Each structure stands twice: as structure tokens, then as C-alpha cells.
């Protein structure tokens, strides 16, 4: 089978994005969305200003990503670079929570809490405030460039840019002391890198929330694709109950149809659900990738149904399972607790417990030992055998730390180090600055008569004088 040249279809491979003009709507889900929006923005802007006392040698900002000193602070938690694996736990936890929320309520994240949704909502509110509702905006777009249109456009973009700047600027507050940086940035004394990143984030906020909007969800975000693979029959999704709505017709037609004894659905085909949709989809076509399940169409439809005196919830959070059951004339059932949700919840509990355990058992000091490989050992003038070790002490407290180092496992072994002071009992003592690490080369010498073998386990024990915390590391002592 060959394809002739005429068969090659010469249609458009690219298309202009269809502009969406979401209409104003009011109702339960809109109210929830506003509440989530204000909580999210409130947390975002207030968090960097919360103080947390960590003593004189550590920053007092509750949440701080201190890149200059490679430390991360979150209230009582302080993480060092070698502990970033905690973030792996956080990411696993976030993914599992997303899975669970998806199994229970579909794309509740997309519709309510995703930053793209939150900021788009905010930008839409500004747009509506300045340019008017859906109809006005469509008209304004089509109108010629009059003074009024120019004023409105300039005002809108200025307001958007202002919000975007506040968004990008606030992100910087998480990286250095917030009040200081805020003062510096406002008085134009801030560091260049802060302005640069604030500028980059201003640009992304302005373009993603102002211009890209639903295009981000449709073409950039991977989550809709993953979500499509995770969905099941029992998840609550924003659903048009077509068993009740079809065949759709106007109120007048439905009266006629009823008079003739014909079936008529509750949907009056007013297209309000499409008008209010922030991504411009028609929910009546069923579950689809473009739907972020924000529930605004439910609010719109409920308002219309109330007006035409029909029962609300023609569009509602519903499951595929119930749609099938109603077809068979059975009652709705909701399986919020089912193997999938139990599994996700258990995985969340397990991950959370492991992370909590790791955090609670996190030590304030640490010792790591590296055996010097070249040479593995040397012989001393007296015939003893000497091994070199590079020890690294960590003091994670915000005050100086004194450590006592002991060695055991090889009879008569003695320690020497240029970086540590010897104590009477053959131990060494090391002093560390607050919140720091120190590399200490240590030489361990076994006397000639101890005759250690080719390889003998050797134990280093570092005791924190203040807390009594002990770090024990076992290495090997090599000999001829």
C-alpha cells in the first residue's frame, strides 16, 4: 500500500491558542478557592518574616535556605548539605499525598492549590477588576485602540507586573535575612543576584499567570498525563451527570417534549459551565485532560439550576462507578476507603514515620574517618607500626564543641595529631567552632611488641564533652 502525494494532508500543524475569557462566578467552590488562595499567599509572604531563636551564632529566621553557608533552616530543623536526603523524603511524601488526594478527590491539587492556579486566579481577578467581566473583555479585545482601551491595558499590565515583582521579590526573602534584604532591595542597595532572580521570577510570574494560564496546564505540566494513569472508577471527579442532563434542550423545548411524552434532560444548554471554565473546556464532554477540576462549573450550573427550579448538582463531584450504577438503576456508593487509598495512606504514614525517626535521632555531632591509603602503614624508628587517618569532626550546634577522641582495638596504640591536644590518658581533645566541621589528621602508632596483624579492626570514639553524645567509627589498622 503506497501513499500518493495527493494523500498528504496539508492541514495546520500549529494553531493559535484559543483565548479563554473565564466569567465571574460565585458559589461554594469559588469560596473554597478564595480561602485557599489567601492562605497560600499569606503563608508565602509571611513565612520569611517569622523569627526563630537559635542562639547567637545562627540566623534567627524560621525558614531560611542559607546558600552562602550551605545550611537549610526550617523552624527546629537545621540541615547540612550531606543531609539533603531529607528532601528526598519530602518529595516522596509530596508525591504520595498527591496520589492519595487524586485517588480521593481527583485533581484537587490542580484546581485549588497549584501555584499556577493560585496566581492565575489572582491575575484573573485583577483583569476582571480593570477590564470587566467576560463579555466586556471579549468586546475590549475586539475594540479599536481608543484612549479608554489603552488606559485599561496599561493599568492591567502595570498591576500584573507589580504583583509579579512582589512575587519574585518575596522568593528572595527565603535566601537571606528577610527584613535586611527587604530594606536593602527597597533602598536599591540589594545584591545584584537578588535583583536578577527577582527579575527572572517576575518575568515567569507575569508570563505564566498573565499570558500562558491554561496553556501551562495543557502543554507544559506533566501532572495531567500522570493523573490520567492514576485515575480509577472510585475517585471523585468533577462530572457532568449526563444520565440526568441528556438530552439537553432549552426550558421551552423541554416543556414541549414533556407534553409529547418525550424525554428531556435537565441541561438547558446555557453554556455557563463553559463560560466560567478557567481552561475553556466543556465538562459535558466528560473527563478530559484540560479539566483542572476546580469545581467552578458546579457553582455556575447550580446557580442556573436554582434559577430554573431544577435540582442542583447536575455537575458535581461524582465517580465513574456511580455513573454506571445509576445507569443500572442502583443507588450511589462512595468508596473513600479502598485498597488503593489504604495503600497510599500506609505509604504516607511509613514515609512520615521514617522521616520523623531520622529527624528525632539526628545527632548534633558527627565523626567520619578516612584511612590514609598511601602509604597504608609505615614503620617507625623503634620498630612500631604507624597508620594515618583523616578524621572529620562535625559540630552541628551553634556553640563551640569540645570532643574527646579515644582509640581502641590495638594494644598499646597511641595517637598523635598536629590539630589536637593530647590528654593524660592517651586521648586527644579537639575544639570545633560553632556549626562547623574540622579535618584532623591523626596518626596511630602500635608499639613493636604489640605486633598487629595485616589488618586489625580499630575503633575511634569521639565524645562531645557538653552533650555526652558519642560517635563511634570502626576502621582498620594495617600492618606488615
Amino acid at each position, binding site marked *: *500500500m503506497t*501513499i*500518493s502525494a*495527493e*494523500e*498528504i*494532508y*496539508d*492541514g*495546520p*500543524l*500549529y*494553531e*493559535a*491558542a484559543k483565548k479563554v475569557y473565564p466569567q465571574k462566578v460565585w458559589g461554594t467552590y469559588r469560596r473554597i478557592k478564595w480561602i485557599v488562595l489567601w492562605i497560600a499567599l499569606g503563608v508565602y509572604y509571611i513565612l520569611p518574616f517569622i523569627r526563630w531563636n537559635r542562639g547567637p551564632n545562627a540566623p534567627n529566621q524560621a525558614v531560611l535556605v542559607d546558600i552562602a553557608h550551605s545550611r537549610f533552616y526550617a523552624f527546629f530543623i537545621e540541615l547540612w548539605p550531606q543531609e539533603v536526603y531529607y528532601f528526598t523524603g519530602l518529595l516522596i511524601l509530596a508525591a504520595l499525598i498527591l496520589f492519595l488526594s487524586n485517588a480521593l478527590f481527583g485533581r484537587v491539587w490542580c484546581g485549588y492549590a497549584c501555584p499556577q492556579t493560585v496566581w492565575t486566579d489572582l491575575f484573573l481577578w485583577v483583569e476582571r477588576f480593570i477590564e470587566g467581566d467576560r463579555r466586556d473583555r471579549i468586546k475590549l479585545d475586539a475594540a479599536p485602540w481608543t484612549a479608554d482601551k489603552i488606559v485599561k491595558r496599561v493599568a492591567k499590565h502595570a498591576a500584573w507586573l507589580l504583583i509579579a515583582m512582589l512575587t519574585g521579590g518575596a522568593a528572595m526573602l527565603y535566601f537571606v535575612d528577610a527584613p535586611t534584604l527587604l530594606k536593602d532591595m527597597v533602598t536599591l542597595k540589594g545584591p545584584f543576584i537578588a535583583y536578577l532572580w527577582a527579575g527572572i521570577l517576575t518575568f515567569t510570574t507575569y508570563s505564566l499567570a498573565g499570558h*500562558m494560564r491554561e*496553556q501551562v496546564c*495543557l*502543554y507544559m505540566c506533566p501532572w495531567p498525563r500522570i493523573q490520567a494513569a492514576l485515575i480509577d472508577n472510585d475517585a471523585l471527579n468533577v462530572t457532568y451527570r449526563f444520565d440526568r442532563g441528556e438530552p439537553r434542550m432549552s426550558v421551552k423545548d423541554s416543556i414541549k417534549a414533556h407534553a409529547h411524552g418525550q424525554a428531556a434532560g435537565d441541561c438547558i444548554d446555557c453554556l455557563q459551565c463553559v463560560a466560567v471554565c478557567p481552561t475553556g473546556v466543556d465538562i459535558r464532554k466528560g473527563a478530559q485532560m484540560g479539566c483542572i477540576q476546580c469545581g467552578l462549573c458546579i457553582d455556575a450550573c447550580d446557580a442556573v439550576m436554582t434559577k430554573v427550579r431544577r435540582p442542583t448538582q447536575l455537575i458535581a463531584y461524582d465517580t465513574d462507578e456511580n455513573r454506571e450504577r445509576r445507569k443500572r438503576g442502583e443507588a450511589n456508593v462512595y468508596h473513600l476507603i479502598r485498597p488503593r487509598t489504604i495503600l497510599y495512606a500506609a505509604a504516607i504514614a511509613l514515609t512520615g514515620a521514617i522521616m520523623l525517626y531520622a529527624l528525632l535521632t539526628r545527632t548534633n555531632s558527627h565523626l567520619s574517618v578516612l584511612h*590514609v591509603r*598511601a*602509604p597504608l602503614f*609505615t*614503620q*617507625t*624508628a*623503634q*620498630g612500631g607500626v*604507624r597508620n*594515618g587517618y583523616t578524621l572529620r569532626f562535625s559540630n552541628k550546634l551553634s556553640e563551640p564543641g569540645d570532643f574527646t577522641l579515644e582509640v581502641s582495638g590495638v594494644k598499646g596504640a597511641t595517637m598523635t*595529631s*598536629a*590539630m589536637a591536644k593530647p590528654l593524660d590518658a592517651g586521648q586527644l581533645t579537639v*575544639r570545633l567552632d560553632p556549626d562547623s566541621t*574540622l*579535618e584532623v*589528621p591523626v*596518626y596511630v602508632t602500635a608499639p*613493636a611488641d604489640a605486633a598487629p596483624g595485616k589488618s586489625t579492626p580499630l575503633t575511634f570514639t569521639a565524645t562531645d564533652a557538653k552533650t555526652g553524645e558519642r560517635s563511634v567509627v570502626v576502621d582498620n589498622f594495617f600492618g606488615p
Partner: protein
Amino acid sequence: MSTDPVQVDRISGQTTTGHEWDGIRELNTPLPRWWLWLFYLTIAFSFAYWIVYPAWPLASSYTAGLFGYTNRGRVAEELAAGQAARMQAAAGLETATLAQIAADPKLTEIALAEGKAAFGDNCTPCHGSGGQGQRGYPNLTAGRWLWGGTLDQIHGTITHGIRADDPDTRASAMPSFGKDGILKPEEVREVANYVRTLGGLEPEQGVDVAAGKKIFADNCSACHGEDGKGNIDMGAPNLTTKVWQYGSDISDLIYTITYARNSVMPAWGKRLDPVTIKSLAVYVHSLGGGT
């Protein structure tokens, strides 16, 4: 198969691209136009990149770009910045004495880091990466020092070298006892066997060790001491330890006594700056220095 080029899929209502494989047609799902613009933007970006950065090779050079950026220049800048940061950290070493450095953990930490790097660059070929030495080159970790193991003595040895081209160099010469006819071959063998016993090693069967002892007292003790414990003022090794710089076999010792060794170390004062030499002294002392 339909010959109609534009086919419309019955289920989705979408048109196809016109491509068909085994009866399977591909739906035409147009990309958004802005995606295409992004692609054009990347092309525009590449042109800007050519103009700003070095890009095109020419016959004997290349287009240098607007700001004359080069990777080598960047490396040089970073090295200079690193050097400046190091100098700042090492500034304290410049004025401090060796004793002050040793007493201050912060200065010791910097000196050890500097010294370890300088040791790797300059000393490792002879003394080994860990200062363990090798045949003919002293082991710096053993605690046996030819010219003394205090900080100042080590510093002096590094600065002026041993038998080096330096007026203050450490200098001494062991006679070639056998080659110059001071001792007869059998006397050399006897004293060599005696020297082995000083270090706790077994002498050869049938050799008169007592005669060797007498030869040692007459010829060697002036430098190596009556008890063979050496003399750091002359760089005469302590012969009673377990460490043998040129080997402990009888043949090694006979060769040493017959021809003498008198090895050489360069005077590093001419090659390295004072801070580096101080750091080296601190580092070498940390390997196994004494007081």
C-alpha cells in the same frame, strides 16, 4: 483505502495528518502556535550566541565574540580569585613564627592544608605521597631525623637543603672507607656486621663482630657516636633504629661503608616563598616530627 487526502476521524472528529501505516492513521493534533514561536526564539538565540561568544573557526583564528570571552581567560580569572582567597587565608602565616603557628589551631589548619599541597607538588617524587620515603630517600614518618626533627630544624633543612648549592646548606661527608683504602674489605665486612647488631639484626656466621666493634670505635664513632645513636649536627644517622635508608642487607651496608652515600636535597629557599616553606615545615613536622 480512501483517496480523500483529508480524512476525519469518526470518533474524535479530528482530521488526520494523511500519513497511514498498515491502515492506522495519525490524528492531526496541532501544536499551539506559541510553541513554534519558542522554537524560532531558540534559533534567534543561537544567532545572538554566535555574536556574543566565540563561535566560528576561521583560517588561523576564530570569531572572538563581542566581549572577548574565552574559557581559558575564565579559568585564569578563577585561579586568580582562588589565589587571592588563599593569600587572604594564609596571611596570618606570613608574620607568625613556627612556634606561634603550631600553638594556634586555626593557623595550623591552614599551614597543614598549604603544606600538604606544596608537599604533593615538590616533595612527593622522592619522599613519597605520604612522606614514607623510599630506598635512598628518608622516611619522614618514622621519627628518625638525619638533621633534626624539630620545627626549626625541619624548616632549616627545607630552606637550605642538604649538600646543596647554598652557603648555609646542611653539609657533611662520610668517607668512602673501602674505596679510599681506609679499611680493608674484610674490615668493612666486620664493621658492617657490627652495625647490623646495633639495629638488632643478626650478624653473619663466622664474622668477628668484636673486631667490627673496635673498627667502629676507631673510625665511625666520631660522627655516629660511641653507641651508634648518630649526631644530628652532622647528619650522621642513628644506626640503632629499625629504619635503614639504604637497606639493611649486609651487602647494602658493605656498599654504604665502601663507597659512602652522601645524598643531596635541593635548597627550597630559592624556589619556594617563605609562607610555603613554613607551611611545609609544619606539615612535615606533623608527619612524625619530634621536639
